[in-house]
C-alpha cells in the first residue's frame, strides 16, 4: 500500500519533470512558462490528491481516478514535443484527461457513478475524448498552423478529408457540449437535494466541477466562433481543472476539520454536559444539525429519548440513517442522522468512541427519567384508584345500608302511627323493621370486609385466604406455606392479589377450577393464581389488574399476568417481605 504510493509518487515526479523538459527544454520553445506551470500544477495536484485519497479512503476509486487523470494531463502535454511519436501520442491524448475530471466530479464523494445516466455520461465523455478525437486527427483534423515550431507531420494522420473532419468535429463538440451541460445539471440537482451536512462536504468539488463544465462549454463555443479568441478558453479550462484537485483536497480538509472536532468534543465532554448538551455537541462534531440520540433500555427492550419517552427507530431509508452505538459489546444508544454521514463512517465511529462514556451516562439518566415517568404515572393511578374506591364505597352505602335504614325508619313510623289504634298491625311493622335492620347490618358487614378484611388482622394471611376461598363460588385449591406472620402491607397486598384474581376468574372464566399457591421464598412472598379457563386475558387491561400492579410495584415487588388463549390464566406476584 505505502510502497505502491511511493512508487506512484516517484514515477509521477519523474513524469512531470520529463514532460516539463519536453515542453520547455527544446530548441523552439513551443510552450510558454504559464503552460508548463499549469501542466505541472494540474498533473501533480491530481496525482497528489489521488495518493492522499488512497490513503484516507482506501477502497474508494476516486484516488485512482485522480491519479489516472493527472497522468493523462501530463501525457497530453507531450503534444508540445519535437519527437514525432511523442507529438502524435500527445495529440491523441490531448483531451483524454477531461473524461477523468468528469468521473471524479460525478463520482465524488462515494467513488461510484450512482446511476445509469451518470454511467452513460461518463461513457459518452470517453467516446468523445478517445475514439472520436483520434478519428478526427486520423482524417486530417490537425491544424499545422496551430503550433509554431511544432512538427508539421502527424504520424497518425492517414488522409486529408476535410468533409469527414468537419463532421467529426461537429460530433465531437456537439457531444462535448451535451456532456458538459448534462453534467452541470447533475451537479445542480445534487446540490439542491443535498442535506446541509452533505453540502458542506461536497461544496468545493461541486462548484469547481460545475465551473470546469462551463469552461468546456466556452471552449466548444469558441471553436465555432467566426474569429476564435485564441488560447484563452484553453487556459481557463486548465486553471479550472487545476482547481478541481485543490477543491478535492479542500473537501478532504473539511473531513479533517471534522476530525479535529472530535478532539474538541473530547474536551467539551470533559465538563459534564447538561441535559440536551450532549446531542448539541455531537451534532456540532458531526456537522449534522438534524442529529438525534436515542438510548437503549435493555430491561424495557426499547429506545427512549433523553427525557425517557419511548421512541421508535426510523427505517434506515434515504431520509434518515441509524447508527447503533455499542460499548463493551452492549448496545447503549443509537444515532439518528443524515445519510450523508455514512460517507464518513470513520468519523462517526471516532465520535461515538469519544462520547461513549457520556452517552452511557446520559443513557442512565434517560433510564432514570423513564422510571420516574412510570412512577409518577403509577402514583397518579394509585390516587385515582383510591378516589374511585371511595366513590364506590359511598355508592354502596347510599344504595345499600342507608336505604335499608331509611326504609326501617319508615316502617317504624308506620308502627308508631298504628300503635294505639291497631296494636297487631303495629307489631307486624315492628317485626318488619327488625328484619330490615338485620339486612342493613349484613350489608354493612359485607361492605366493611370489602374495605379491609378483618380476619387478616386477626388471624393472618393464611386464614384470610382460607376464608376467601370458602366464600368463592369456584372450586379453589389452596396451598399456603408461610412460616410466620408477614408485615401488614404485604399481607393485605397478597390478599388482594388473590381476591382480585378470583373475582376476575369468576367474572371471565366461571367454569374454571383455580389453584392458589402462596409461599415464602428468599424473603419474598410468591403468589400464584392459576385457572384452567379459556385464557386470553389482556395483560394491560382492567383497572383492577393495573391497580394491583401499581400496588405491588409500590412495594418493590413484581406482577406478571400470563394468559394465552386455550392455556388458562396465571397471575404471579412477588412481594418483598422486608
Amino acid at each position, binding site marked *: 500500500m505505502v510502497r505502491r504510493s511511493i512508487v506512484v509518487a516517484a514515477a509521477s515526479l519523474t513524469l512531470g519533470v520529463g514532460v516539463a523538459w519536453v515542453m520547455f527544454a527544446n530548441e523552439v520553445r513551443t510552450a510558454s512558462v504559464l503552460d508548463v506551470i499549469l501542466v505541472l500544477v494540474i498533473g501533480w495536484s491530481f496525482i497528489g490528491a489521488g495518493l492522499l485519497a488512497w490513503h484516507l479512503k482506501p477502497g474508494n476509486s476516486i484516488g485512482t481516478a485522480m491519479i489516472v487523470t493527472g497522468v493523462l494531463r501530463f501525457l497530453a502535454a507531450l503534444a508540445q514535443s519535437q519527437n514525432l511519436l511523442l507529438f502524435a501520442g500527445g495529440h491523441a491524448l490531448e483531451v483524454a484527461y477531461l473524461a477523468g475530471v468528469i468521473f471524479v466530479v460525478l463520482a465524488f464523494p462515494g467513488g461510484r457513478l450512482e446511476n445509469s445516466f451518470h454511467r452513460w455520461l461518463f461513457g459518452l465523455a470517453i467516446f468523445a475524448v478517445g475514439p472520436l478525437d483520434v478519428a478526427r486527427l486520423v482524417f486530417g483534423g490537425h491544424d499545422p498552423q496551430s503550433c509554431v515550431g511544432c512538427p508539421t507531420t502527424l504520424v497518425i494522420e492517414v488522409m486529408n478529408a476535410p468533409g469527414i473532419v468537419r463532421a467529426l468535429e461537429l460530433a465531437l463538440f456537439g457531444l462535448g457540449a451535451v456532456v458538459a451541460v448534462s453534467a452541470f445539471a447533475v451537479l445542480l440537482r445534487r446540490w439542491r437535494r443535498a442535506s446541509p451536512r452533505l453540502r458542506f462536504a461536497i461544496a468545493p468539488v461541486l462548484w469547481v466541477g460545475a465551473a470546469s463544465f462551463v469552461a468546456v462549454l466556452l471552449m466548444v463555443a469558441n471553436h465555432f466562433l467566426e474569429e476564435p479568441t485564441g488560447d484563452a478558453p484553453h487556459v481557463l479550462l486548465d486553471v479550472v481543472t487545476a482547481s478541481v484537485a485543490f477543491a478535492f483536497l479542500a473537501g478532504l480538509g473539511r473531513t479533517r476539520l471534522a476530525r479535529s472536532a472530535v478532539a474538541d468534543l473530547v474536551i467539551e465532554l470533559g465538563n459534564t454536559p447538561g441535559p440536551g448538551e450532549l446531542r448539541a455537541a455531537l451534532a456540532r462534531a458531526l456537522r449534522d444539525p438534524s442529529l438525534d440520540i436515542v438510548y437503549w433500555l435493555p430491561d424495557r427492550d426499547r429506545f427512549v429519548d433523553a427525557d425517557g419517552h419511548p421512541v421508535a427507530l426510523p427505517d434506515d431509508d434515504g431520509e434518515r440513517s441509524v447508527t447503533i452505538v455499542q460499548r463493551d459489546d452492549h448496545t447503549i444508544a443509537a444515532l439518528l442522522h443524515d445519510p450523508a454521514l455514512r460517507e464518513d463512517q470513520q468519523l462517526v465511529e471516532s465520535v461515538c468512541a469519544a462520547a461513549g462514556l457520556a452517552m452511557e451516562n446520559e443513557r442512565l439518566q434517560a433510564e432514570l427519567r423513564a422510571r420516574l415517568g412510570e412512577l409518577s404515572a403509577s402514583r397518579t393511578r394509585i390516587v385515582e384508584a383510591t378516589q374511585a374506591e371511595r366513590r364506590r364505597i359511598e355508592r354502596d352505602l347510599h344504595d345499600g345500608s342507608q*336505604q335499608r335504614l331509611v326504609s326501617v*325508619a*319508615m316502617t317504624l*313510623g308506620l308502627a308508631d302511627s298504628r300503635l294505639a289504634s291497631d296494636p297487631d298491625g303495629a307489631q307486624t311493622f315492628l317485626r318488619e323493621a327488625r328484619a330490615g335492620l338485620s339486612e342493613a347490618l349484613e350489608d354493612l358487614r359485607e361492605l366493611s370486609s370489602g374495605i379491609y378484611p378483618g380476619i387478616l388482622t386477626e388471624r393472618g394471611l393464611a386464614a384470610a385466604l382460607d376464608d376467601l376461598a370458602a366464600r368463592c363460588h369456584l372450586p379453589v385449591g389452596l396451598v399456603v406455606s408461610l412460616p410466620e406472620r408477614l408485615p401488614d402491607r404485604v399481607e393485605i397486598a397478597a390478599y388482594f392479589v388473590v381476591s382480585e384474581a378470583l373475582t376476575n376468574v369468576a367474572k371471565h372464566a366461571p367454569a374454571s377450577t383455580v389453584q392458589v399457591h402462596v409461599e415464602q421464598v428468599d424473603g419474598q412472598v410468591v403468589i400464584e393464581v392459576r385457572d384452567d379457563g379459556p385464557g386470553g386475558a389482556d395483560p394491560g387491561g382492567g383497572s383492577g389488574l393495573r391497580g394491583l400492579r401499581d400496588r405491588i410495584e409500590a412495594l418493590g415487588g413484581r406482577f406478571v399476568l400470563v394468559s394465552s388463549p386455550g392455556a388458562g390464566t396465571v397471575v404471579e406476584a412477588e412481594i418483598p417481605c422486608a
Partner: protein
Amino acid sequence: MRVVVAEDSMILREGLVRLLTEAGFDVVGQAGDGTELLAQVDAHRPEVAIVDIRMPPTHTDEGLRAAKELRHRYPGLGVLVLSQYARPSYAFELLSEGTDGIGYLLKDRVSDLGELAESVRRVAGGGSVLDPSVVAQLVNRRRMGNDPVDELTEREFEVLGLMAEGRSNKAVADRLFITEHTVEKHVQNIFAKLQISATTDDHRRVLAVLTFLNSS
C-alpha cells in the same frame, strides 16, 4: 290529596307509598327517574310531586333538575324534594326560583308520619319546607365569630330556625307552646337585630331569612 312519587330505589318507593297512603294521601303515580316523573305528572296532574334527588341515569342530581322543570311547567304544583344528604347548596338552588310550594327534606325525616303529612300539605298549599338540618348548618355557620346572629336570644334563635324551615307564625307558636302574638314580637325583634326589612308575607319572609343566613 293526589301525589306522585319519584324514587329509583324500589324498597324506599314502596315504603314511601305505604306511608303516604297511611297518612291519607292518594298516590296516583310512581316513577323511577326524571323522565318518567314528568310523564306521570303530565298524566295525573297531582297536587304534589315527591322527588328523590339522586336518580338514574347519572345518579347525581336528576331529581333536582326534574323538580325545577316541574315548577316551570306546572306553576301551581307543590314539589317536595327528598335527599339522603342535607346540602344547603341544593336547597338554595331549589328555592332561588321562588319559595312557594317547594320543599327540601332529608329522607329520614319522612319516617315521622305527622311531619311528612304536614310537609306535603304545606307545599301543596303554596308554603315552603326546609329541612331543619339544612337550617342548622346555615345558622351554625353564622354563629362563628362576630355576627348579628349572636345578638339574638335563645328563644329568638329558635324562632329564626323555625321560620327558616318555612313555618308560619301559627306553626311556630304551636311548636314552642307560645302565643302567636309572642311569636310576632320575636319576629319583629329578630328582623330588627338582623336588619332585615320586615315582611308579613310568609313566603318572602323565608327567602329573606335564608338570604340573610347565606350571605357572609
